[in-house]
């Protein structure tokens, strides 16, 4: 989920950059040198997982999975997402430099939010774990869409319908991300529960 270059206004770009820098600084402060390799390699896993291509009927979409990264890393997800997006823009030219801050906020703020909202429900019962994961995945994309919509709307009030159209097209992706996050979290708890951080 990216906003391309050249779309947003100066105010939105600078607000995004300031929030992203602050968030990254907070995230980096929470990572000490014993964990940094863990965060870095999970960022690479996030990068690779976002290349997974899944079918919806005849169309295909890429996974986003910022929900899972948020659940696993909390605040540390912000620098991890910044890293992944920067590498994406270097290798694939999905985004450039000016929209990087806004894109980090769009992806990382929901990730941190779902960490605090849904992590406490993981591991209580298998059903609850699935649904907590489901809603973590769904809400992370929903919040990302809303932030993207706001960024466009603050740039120009005429973008309202465009933002609405984007949010509507993302509804199927929200549901799929929900299902995948739900299964993925249940799987992680079964196979390697140490990866799930202790309750915030």
């Amino acid at each position, binding site marked *: 989920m990216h906003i391309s270059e*050249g779309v947003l206004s100066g105010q939105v770009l600078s607000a995004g950059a300031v929030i992203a820098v602050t968030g990254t600084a907070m995230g980096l402060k929470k990572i000490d040198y014993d964990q940094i390799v863990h965060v870095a390699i999970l960022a690479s896993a996030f990068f690779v997982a976002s290349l997974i291509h899944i079918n919806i009927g005849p169309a295909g979409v890429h996974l986003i999975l910022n929900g899972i990264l948020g659940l696993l890393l909390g605040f540390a997800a912000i620098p991890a997402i910044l890293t992944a997006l920067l590498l994406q823009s270097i290798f694939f030219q999905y985004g450039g430099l000016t929209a990087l801050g806004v894109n980090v906020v769009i992806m990382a703020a929901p990730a941190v939010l779902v960490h605090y909202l849904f992590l406490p429900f993981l591991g209580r019962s298998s059903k609850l774990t699935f649904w907590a994961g489901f809603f973590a995945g769904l809400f992370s994309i929903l919040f990302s869409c809303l932030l993207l919509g706001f960024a466009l709307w603050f740039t120009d009030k005429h973008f309202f319908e465009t933002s609405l159209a984007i949010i509507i097209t993302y509804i199927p992706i929200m549901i799929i991300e929900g299902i995948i996050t739900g299964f993925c979290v249940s799987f992680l708890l079964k196979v390697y529960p140490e*990866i799930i951080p202790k309750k915030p």
Partner: protein
Amino acid sequence: MIEEKFAFGNSFIHRLDPKARIIAVIILSFAAALCDNLNIAILYFIVSIVFIGLAKLNVKDVFKRIKPVFWFLLMLWILLPITFEGEIIYKFYWLEISTEGIIMCCKITIKSITILLFFTSLVATMNIASLGNGLHKLYVSDKMIFLLLMSYRYIAVIEDEYKRLLRAAKFRGFKPKTNVHSYKTFAYLAGMLFVRASLRAQRVHQAMLCRGFNKKFYTLDVYESDRSNFIFLIGVFITLATLVVLELYQGLFFGN
């Protein structure tokens, strides 16, 4: 998957200090993003093409590289003229195409391509180690640079893991479809990717400690701080100042 096609070359841009290139790309990109005049945006576009020329990049490869953006722009050209409110120039049943929408599309198209070309000519022409080096000289936090270099190093490894998992699934007759079983399989696959990444991180960390890792990366690339960097930055500043002044006093030059 990851190709650093442009990172190795022999041109004026390739020889510049990463620090100078990072400073230049930041100010040029932001200036282009903040430009709100179609004529000036075209001038920025010309400057970006000059940079591609200075870096002696293959035009075909550059075009291939920015192809994903064209899909986004195509979507924009379909969506924006009909959803953007403003003066209507063409009406087809319920479809109303507005002038403002079309102007907006032109501006976004030119600006986004320009910013990507700046990025390609200045940042994609260095390898990630040099980028880390440049960021370090610009006082970016060591931890952030560590994250960047480390993630970069392990993307290819994790991608191999992913391909291996996918191959194993295919050998067992897995065909991706639109159903819960497929989604579950992909979820487990992504989960396994995170598990393997985490286990590998532990091993890598232990190996680093064994080799006396002291929380610091040392760079082996040394860029001589000769006069070309200084001249390059002065050139960038003069170009920028000219464009900004042109935009401020556009009425005098373009008559609107």
